[in-house]
């Protein structure tokens, strides 16, 4: 192990060379460390945004694609949407919900129901900036829609599209017994003078059996969805939030004229994953198992892309910076080391002449470079992070509250043009601080040290091997 002593003595005696090498390592390491820190921090920031947005994935029918294909004649206008490939059929949802990373799923069926004795909410466009309509008494028939839920709390309530202001959701006994319990909208309840415990009688819109089924009101909610005038005007009144009732999935058969089958087309399904990091895995699995030709999986991607855009750019830039610096650094180091080793031919020849092994000679050179590299990299861990912070300060996402309307569509039973409606999923995300937090990161340090040492070792080994392939006489004669 005396080669280590030789290496340390060489570093001490050859101060100019050691300082030059140190400065070079320090500059390269700082740039690389800054880049790595920003890159890693941008990854973490993107994960945080994803966590903030949530781990929900909405599976719905792709009505835009259907409309396009109908227009181009690829599918017929009359085609039953449940026969289209990739739409959210019950069997498809069941396949996806059995994955380990799925925490819960809310299966949604839209069913149009009727009771001519009940007042329907009609949307009248106004000129106010809110675009809010007002309720008027029904003039025709009382068309409404039933929306099912299969999770303990319906997704509309967990994502703040609706708020339960009175009563409760269905309990376990009511779910297991498929009890006819219902949650109605506040405006509807007021217009029809209904309260908790009252009964609502409904029948299926297109059903063959016209007998009314009675549902007991267990909850009253208000809708938080703000409809765009243009959307609201074109919507079927039955699908307006005020005309929507919530019942548990297991109770839907009580009013449906046909039994639920695996090929039942759902209006949509909302998967709640155990962690946002599973979103891409989930999507990939779905794409492999189900051909999503006319189906859509959306994890609030528009909002995610909007928020992560600047961070992505910074991450890409820093990643590129690291690669360029590493390559340039490797080349510069390689050249300097090669020149240094070349200048030390005499020493190599002399050491070989007195019987030193080639491995120990190369090891000495490696120790010399590695000692300087470790000191430089060690210092750059702190200075590089500071540089990274300065870079990241120039690109950050401002604190904001972002509200985005998911304009995906949900299909219903029957003709897609009639039953396709915008799923107005009003997701509000509070982004208090998505500034890239550049901190000391163990993995970045390991990557930097590992790659730095690897570059150093390779840049020493190659020229040293080139010289030591000669015999001592040849090396010493060349010097002479």
């Amino acid at each position, binding site marked *: 192990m*005396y080669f280590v002593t030789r290496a340390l003595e060489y570093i001490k005696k050859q101060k100019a060379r050691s300082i030059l090498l140190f400065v070079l390592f320090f500059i390269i390491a700082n740039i690389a460390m800054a880049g790595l820190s920003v890159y890693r921090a941008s990854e973490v920031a993107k994960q945080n945004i994803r966590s903030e947005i949530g781990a929900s994935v909405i599976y719905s029918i792709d009505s835009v694609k259907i409309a396009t294909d109908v227009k181009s004649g690829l599918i017929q206008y009359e085609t039953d949407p449940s026969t289209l490939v990739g739409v959210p059929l019950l069997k498809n949802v069941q396949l996806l919900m059995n994955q380990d990373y799925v925490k819960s799923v809310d299966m949604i069926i839209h069913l149009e129901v009727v009771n001519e004795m009940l007042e329907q909410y009609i949307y009248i466009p106004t000129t106010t900036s809110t675009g809010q309509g007002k309720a008027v008494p029904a003039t025709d028939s009382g068309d409404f829609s039933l929306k099912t839920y299969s999770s303990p709390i319906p997704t509309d309530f967990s994502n703040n599209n609706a708020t339960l202001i009175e009563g409760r959701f269905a309990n376990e006994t009511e779910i297991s017994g498929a009890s006819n319990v219902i949650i109605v909208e506040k405006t509807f309840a007021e217009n029809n003078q209904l309260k908790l415990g009252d009964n609502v009688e409904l029948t299926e819109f297109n059903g063959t059996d016209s007998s009314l089924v009675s549902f007991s009101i267990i909850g009253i909610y208000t809708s938080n969805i703000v409809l765009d005038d243009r959307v609201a005007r074109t919507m079927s009144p039955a699908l307006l939030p005020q005309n929507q009732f919530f019942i548990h999935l297991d109770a839907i058969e009580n009013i449906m004229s046909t039994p639920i089958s695996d090929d039942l087309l759902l209006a949509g399904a909302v998967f709640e994953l155990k962690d946002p990091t599973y979103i891409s895995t989930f999507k990939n699995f779905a794409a492999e198992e189900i051909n999503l030709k006319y189906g859509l999986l959306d994890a609030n991607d528009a909002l995610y892309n909007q928020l992560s855009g600047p961070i992505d750019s910074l991450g890409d830039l820093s990643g590129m910076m690291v690669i360029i610096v590493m390559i340039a650094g490797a080349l510069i180091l390689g050249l300097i080391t090669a020149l240094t080793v070349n200048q030390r031919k005499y020493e190599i020849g002399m050491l070989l002449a007195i019987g030193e092994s080639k491995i120990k000679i190369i090891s000495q050179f490696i120790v010399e470079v590695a000692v300087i590299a470790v000191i430089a990299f060690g210092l750059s861990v702190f200075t590089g992070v500071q540089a990274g912070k300065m870079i990241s300060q120039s690109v950050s996402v401002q604190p904001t509250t972002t509200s985005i309307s998911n304009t995906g569509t949900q299909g219903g039973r029957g003709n897609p043009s009639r039953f396709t409606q915008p799923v107005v999923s009003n997701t509000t995300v509070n982004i208090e601080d998505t500034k890239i937090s550049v901190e000391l990161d163990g993995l970045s340090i390991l990557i930097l040290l590992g790659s730095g040492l690897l570059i150093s070792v390779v840049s020493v080994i190659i020229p040293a091997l080139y010289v030591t392939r000669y015999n001592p006489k040849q090396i010493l004669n060349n010097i002479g």
Partner: protein
Amino acid sequence: MSILSLKNVSYGYIDGNKKRTIINDLSYDFEVGKFYTIFGPSGSGKTTLLSLIGALEKTQEGAILFDGQSIESIGLSKYRRNHQSIVFQQFNLLPYLSALDNVINVMNITNNPIPKPYKETALKLLNQLGIVESKAVRSIQKLSGGEQQRVAIARALATNVKLILADEPTGNLDTDTEREIISIFKNLAHEYQCCVIVVSHSQEVAKESDISLRLTNGKLVEIKGENHE
């Protein structure tokens, strides 16, 4: 007793279109306890012969035996490490180490048993060769030529080998220092029972040696008497 035998050793190189033979079917036995000088005109192949004996390069034909065993079968690197030492005309000391560290360095390289602690043994050896401790710890570049040559000899002795080779060891030294170095080599041969082989132009060195050898036409010829011209 023969320690080193050259058996039909040949060596040459291509000069233009001609093959030039430097060592030609050379055979010779070197014994312990003797001080040999090899001399001859410039270009006669003295340094090449010493390089072959010191395993700095391989023979093209024939064999070199150390204690009856071919140095190639011992392994050239291992042979250089454990069985011989060379003193170079240019000293070939590590410039970034002190005189003391240069000697300790070879003690760590060889596999031969060296009395420990190495520092003490090295200092004693340097002292015997006239390098006091205050000079031993100095950078090698701050020593005179004669002192550096003494350090180079100390380095050669530090590995505890029986075969010591020297290439023009007094070539860069003044007459007084030359005499001192010759005296050291004689002492090594006679008192420490080493085989000392010195390549030199110097008449002084040749006169002091036990056996003088002239390298002529690629062969070694023993010179009798005082005429080393």
